[in-house]
């Protein structure tokens, strides 16, 4: 089943929706405005009736896998259950209906929620304060690096480099570059952890910060984290925590205690705000005392039970987005924390680690495990051993789709060949993990007996593997002016 584009279903004279009339006597835009301010060609939006529109999107929805229906073992993404009550909380008119420029007196509940969420996040990661402004993880990284830059700058220290491990997520180096730093890569050692020797060689007074995630993207806890912190701090650099992997140890340990100076969190991972097919998320950043003066404005302050937005922060890096963050996502994350409590969050991380190790055990006879366990909340396997049969990680991913599972993250982190990165999360049952392991076994078995079946996967999806090379060529042709079909959008055929 495929579905035509809304544009392709559009008919020229389909009825426009009924909408309120102006009901006032006032001039038309064309009477008041000069011609060159007016649109000459109406936009070519689709014309469809409401029943057609709803059918269209319902059918599109049914073409998606999602955690509501499928196990989604996407490593590094923490695809856990999104509590339905959180959606109800965010939709309360008392939140959804608030204008961001209402007077503080009329939004005390919203500010209180933000204040409490900040306190809760501080408790979880062990920092002094948190800004809720950043819209996603990458935005949080960049926000933190700007604070770190401002901090060094305030001390007359013009540091130019940021160290990033080779196993890091792409947003880390990209955020560093966007903040005007040079990126210097630090190598991983044999055991999958950062190489202390290499780190040592890269540390210098030019280094503004080391960006780490812990457990790292291989799902391994950086055992030497306290030494690393000491080394980094000794050179006057700061330690930055990429919180994508925070689900591994809530209530077990805290980045702040490990020596991290700034920490971003992905509320759309650890704190269950739904991923929405690619956002919106929220990427709050927590900081230790030295960085507090540099937090973005405004902060939320509470004095004698009265809440206020503080815009007067002279050393602040300023604003990193409009208004106060993705407030609707903050409500959801807060609802999650309230329902789970300290005990629940702790058990969540314990269960996440348990499930990852259990699943790792179940598949270790079928997939290569490049690093020793135990792992934390996720593990990275490899399909390298199937290369001889012509089977790649991608083939395994596609075969899983046919078996009603979403695929693990593949080819990331870059330090493992044919990487298959699996994060089961705490909200999948043992029965589901067992079924997934059985599917892996069956697929790996097919690699020997019928590799073509894997190359042909997926068969049960709305489409088979798409020819991305041909698509790229066509896009290229368009971008170079050799074709008029943009590929990146629908365009009415000229006639």
């Amino acid at each position, binding site marked *: 089943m495929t579905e035509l584009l809304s544009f392709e279903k559009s008919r020229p004279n389909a009825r426009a929706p009924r909408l309120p009339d102006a009901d006032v006597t006032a001039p038309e835009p064309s009477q008041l405005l000069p011609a060159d301010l007016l649109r000459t060609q109406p936009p070519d939006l689709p014309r469809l009736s409401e029943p057609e529109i709803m059918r269209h*999107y319902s059918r599109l929805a049914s073409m998606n896998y999602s955690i509501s229906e499928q196990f989604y073992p996407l490593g590094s993404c923490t695809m856990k259950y999104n509590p339905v009550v959180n959606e109800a909380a965010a939709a309360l008119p008392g939140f959804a209906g608030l204008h961001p420029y209402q007077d503080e007196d009329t939004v005390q509940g919203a500010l209180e929620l933000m204040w409490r969420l900040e306190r809760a996040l501080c408790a979880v990661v062990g920092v002094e304060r948190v800004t809720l402004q950043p819209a996603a993880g990458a935005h949080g990284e960049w926000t933190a690096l700007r604070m770190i830059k401002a901090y060094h700058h305030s001390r007359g220290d013009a540091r130019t480099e940021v160290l990033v491990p080779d196993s890091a997520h792409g947003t880390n180096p990209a955020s560093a570059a966007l903040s005007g730093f040079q990126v210097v890569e630090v190598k991983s050692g044999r055991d999958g952890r950062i190489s202390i020797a290499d780190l040592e060689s890269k540390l210098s007074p030019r280094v503004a910060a080391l960006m780490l995630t812990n457990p790292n993207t291989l799902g391994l806890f950086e055992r030497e984290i306290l030494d690393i912190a000491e080394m980094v701090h000794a050179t006057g650099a700061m330690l930055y925590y990429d919180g994508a992997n925070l689900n591994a140890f809530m209530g077990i340990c805290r980045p702040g205690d490990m020596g991290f100076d700034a920490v971003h969190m992905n509320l759309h991972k650890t704190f269950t705000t739904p991923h929405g097919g690619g956002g919106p998320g929220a990427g709050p950043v927590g900081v230790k005392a030295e960085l507090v003066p540099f937090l973005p404005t405004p902060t939320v302050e509470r004095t004698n039970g009265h809440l206020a937005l503080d815009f007067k922060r002279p050393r602040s890096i300023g604003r990193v987005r409009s208004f106060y963050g993705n407030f609707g996502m903050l409500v959801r994350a807060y609802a999650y924390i309230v329902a789970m409590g300290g005990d629940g969050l702790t058990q969540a991380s314990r269960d996440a680690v348990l499930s990852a190790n259990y699943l790792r055990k179940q598949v270790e006879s079928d997939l290569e495990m490049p690093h020793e366990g135990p792992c934390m909340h996720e593990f990275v396997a490899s399909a390298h051993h199937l290369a001889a049969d012509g089977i790649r990680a991608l083939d395994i991913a596609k075969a899983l789709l046919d078996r009603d599972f979403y695929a693990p993250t593949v080819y990331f982190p870059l330090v493992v060949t044919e990487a298959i990165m699996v994060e089961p999360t705490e909200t999948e049952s043992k029965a589901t993990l067992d079924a997934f392991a059985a599917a892996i076994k069956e697929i790996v078995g097919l690699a020997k007996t019928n590799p073509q079946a894997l190359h042909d996967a997926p068969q049960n999806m709305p489409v088979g593997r798409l020819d991305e090379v041909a698509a790229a060529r066509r896009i290229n042709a368009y971008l170079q002016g050799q074709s008029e079909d943009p*590929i990146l959008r629908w365009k009415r055929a000229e006639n």
Partner: protein
Amino acid sequence: MPYLVHSEEDRASMLEAIGVQSMDDLLLDIPRSLRIKELELPAGLSEYETMSQIASLAARNRVFPDRLTFRGGGVYRRFIPAAVAAVTSKPEFYTAYTPYQPEASQGTLQAIYEFQTLIAELTALDVANASLYDGATAVAEAAMMAHVHTGRDEVVVAGYLHPEYLEVLRAFSDGRGMKVRKGTEPGPKTAAVIFQQPDFLGLLVDAKTLTESAHAAGALAIACVDPISLAVLAPPGQYGADIAVGEGQQLGLSPSYGGPHVGFISCRRELVRRLPGRLVGSAYDHQGRRGFTLALAAREQHIRREKATSNICTNHSLCALAASVYMTYMGPEGLRQVAEVSFKRAHLLSERLAALPGWEPAFPERQFWNEFPMRVPKGPAVLRKLAKKGILGPLDVHRWFRELKGVLTFTCTEVNDPRALDELVAAIES
């Protein structure tokens, strides 16, 4: 623990299967000194109590009725068709991840492809991306594009750009070592001229002239636009702008105290490789079936790392979906009607307010769209009076612009029915 799955028996049997005695055996890599006893947070609550607590927070906020909301400044109350929530509340959309596996994500991918097309159509430019965080970061990302494209280090901001967008632009520029200058005269170092149409005060700028002067200086023209107004106002593509950006909140998203909303960006063909974030394109499988997939990924952080066009990864996909449903519901005629109703009511209101003693348009010589600045005697007192009557009155813009003392901006949309205008005027006069 409301959202946990394993029973104690499950845990025990899983530990056994792993071959360890206890959870602690799995946490051995964590230095003992780092282990904490417990989180300093209250114990969890039942769903009923959780929701009661949160509802009581919501009850401590005051929500003004749509029809009596005249405050805008970047966030607007509009009619949102029920279709929007009916689509975005589908778990198949809202609980999916970024569509890395295209075969299992055709719903999201096709929806994004349609969003890209809708935005490209609306702005009359060639290609739009899958979304950005908000209008402010969209402006900043556009400036980065211009910076890289032209190799120049300065952007010129003409007129009343939303002050928060300006602030964010400065923050981004600072990181990249770019300067932000206010003015209308681009120079040889200027990468782009940025203007907002209508501007923060609701006034219309001479987009065509600004665009031409940018081009004359070898700079790009970046237009920050109100998507609804584009049903009637000249779109960036028409007057030759190179990049269009904007905030999509008006396209079916609730105010939600400022977010999540959605930024959009579109550009001319020549600039497509500089676009930040995700792009979806069409492709075919070996049976010839058309599908959709992420395209031009080599611009992005997960491939290009520090050389990426932007660091953005998670964007605002679900908000873009909402905007798509909204635009599809409206169609070209619907969008036009919404735009015109807003325009007309704002113009009627402006006339009525200008007739009040001591009130006058702040920029009588300038045209506006559906938001307009009035010079008002005793603004703060007026606002207090309106709030008492349940009206969310105009926005006092003096907070951001020293020169605009006593200037308040009023907004009208299709939700401010004529009787609501009467009530506003009566409340002011009372």
